[in-house]
């Protein structure tokens, strides 16, 4: 079967959505994975976006922005950001979500705020130094990280992105691991998986360190370890993720009208 690594990643993420779930989706891969799931196996899933756009499916291609007219066209309800992000997401009513990242660390902490010169990170120097590269900030991802019952992190699997400790925690995963989230009383459950273009990592139930759970037909345990910036542990049950079925690929490509994942 012919498919790209990003298509495999989107399908693997989509498979994590179950029918009937209330899910918040962001632009790009997140929406693609979510609407693929709704089309493929979760027809009663309720996806929405962070401004409070409910009941809609994209029209004319994936939206440029999550409240773009492509997603507003057939909505059944428009409310507001406090409703979507605070009443639904931050209060643990949302079942599932996807967030992206520029960096992720072994406890699933995510950085989307900036990249620092090595050694100049705020947590290393005890000062809020300026980043070398300013990124976008957390957007609604912090709200998802503290509040969603569970969520997935999607990432391109590269050593420079998979770090022992991210430069800046934009959206908290399990912080220092173990029960560290409890101190902050976060209502949500934390990240359930890191899904990449090479495989799937899941947290150890006790230490909350992310370990390798599965690889794809085109990747391997060794390749994934090599592309991870921390000493990645491998699950004794590590397995290959089933390849996309023809139906899955067809459904994915129906959502990805413009073929962004085949590039």
């Amino acid at each position, binding site marked *: 079967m012919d498919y790209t690594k990003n298509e495999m990643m989107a399908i693997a993420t989509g498979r994590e959505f179950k029918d009937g779930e209330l899910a918040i989706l962001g632009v790009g891969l997140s929406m693609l994975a979510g609407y693929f799931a709704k089309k493929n196996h979760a027809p009663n899933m309720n996806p929405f976006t962070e401004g409070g756009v409910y009941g809609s499916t994209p*029209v004319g291609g994936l939206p440029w922005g999550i*409240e*773009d007219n492509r997603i507003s066209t057939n909505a059944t309800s428009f409310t507001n950001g406090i409703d979507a992000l*605070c009443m639904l997401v*931050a209060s643990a009513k949302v079942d599932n979500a996807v967030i992206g990242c520029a960096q992720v660390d072994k406890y699933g902490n995510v950085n989307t705020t900036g990249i620092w010169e090595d050694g100049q990170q705020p947590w290393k120097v005890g000062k809020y130094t300026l980043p070398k590269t300013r990124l976008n900030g957390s957007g609604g991802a912090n709200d998802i990280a503290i509040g969603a019952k569970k969520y997935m992190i999607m990432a391109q699997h590269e050593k420079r992105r998979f770090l022992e400790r991210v430069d800046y925690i934009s959206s908290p995963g399990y912080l220092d691991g173990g029960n560290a989230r409890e*101190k*902050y009383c976060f209502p949500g459950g934390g990240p359930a998986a890191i899904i990449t273009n090479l495989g799937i990592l899941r947290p150890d139930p006790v230490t909350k360190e992310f370990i390798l759970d599965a690889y794809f037909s085109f990747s391997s345990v060794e390749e994934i370890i090599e592309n991870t910036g921390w000493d990645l542990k491998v699950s004794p049950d590590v397995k290959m993720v089933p390849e996309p079925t023809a139906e899955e690929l067809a459904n994915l490509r129906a959502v990805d009208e413009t073929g962004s994942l085949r590039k």
Partner: protein
Amino acid sequence: MGNKLISMQEAVSKYTWDGMTFAHGGGLPVGSDCTEFFREMVRQGVKDINSISHCSCQGINLLAAVGGISRIEVGFSGLEVYGFANGLRRAVESGQTILEDYSNGSMPLRILAGALGIPFMPSYISVGSDQEWCSADEPDVYPNTKKIPVIQDPFTGKNVGALSAVVPDLAVIHVTMADVNGNAIILGTEWSRFELSRAAKKVVLQADYIVDTDCMRQYPNLVRIPDFLVDAVVYAPMGVWPACSTGCYDSDEEHFYYMNKMLKTEEGTQEYLEKYVNSYKTSEELVDVIGKEKVDLISKSDTAFLMDPYRKWIKTDAEIKELMGGR
């Protein structure tokens, strides 16, 4: 009550000043924010702005690119699929603009606290991460404990963050329809426009359409911003361009990319200003600048049917001129 219609030039000169705390944020970057108001701020050279919103937008990107923003409190500083906001990024990386990070949920909660007249909002958002520990206002302190202090819930003794209230000097709010008194209807997500209209000391509306008050009496539940909260109403067709206004027009993909590319450098910014900011004065001229064909194309929005129930109350350009006393 009373006719509050004024021109964009008058609105900016009357309601903005250097050093003010300025709130906007009708939508996400590709959504309904007050781009035209920002262009007029640039034309009038307003500077030293402290910007408040959950999200950045092309207006912020532009104002930052010309050095007009000294400080910004924001949840998301990018342009969604269109990438990083190059003008803002340049200003932040150079240290010209101080950026205080929050999230898209914590910023609206701070505005809600401002609207409610309470000093802070308890929340679990933004705490336990570098959003709590890093304060751009106090860069020498890490971890910072004063930006989002952790307090105890008096009922259980458990930790919860305290997000400080924001009360902006001015909120400029894009709306789909307004009457001359300032009653306003928004199509599409409200984001934090409802809360902003209650939190800010002054409120200026930028509207795609001016409609008769009869429209408001037929749809009072849609009127989420009542007139008495509003200081001025500006008629601004295509005023969100190149972003989209739900029910009116789609985003201008080509220009969105082009604009952001130009704002990457100082030279590009100057060229962009000449071509797309200082090249027109009226909204009729703006249509020429965008290009009639492009306007027609993006106005063929799949969302256009959302405007149908209200079209019979829309005031024509001639009627609006009359209402503005020919100004």
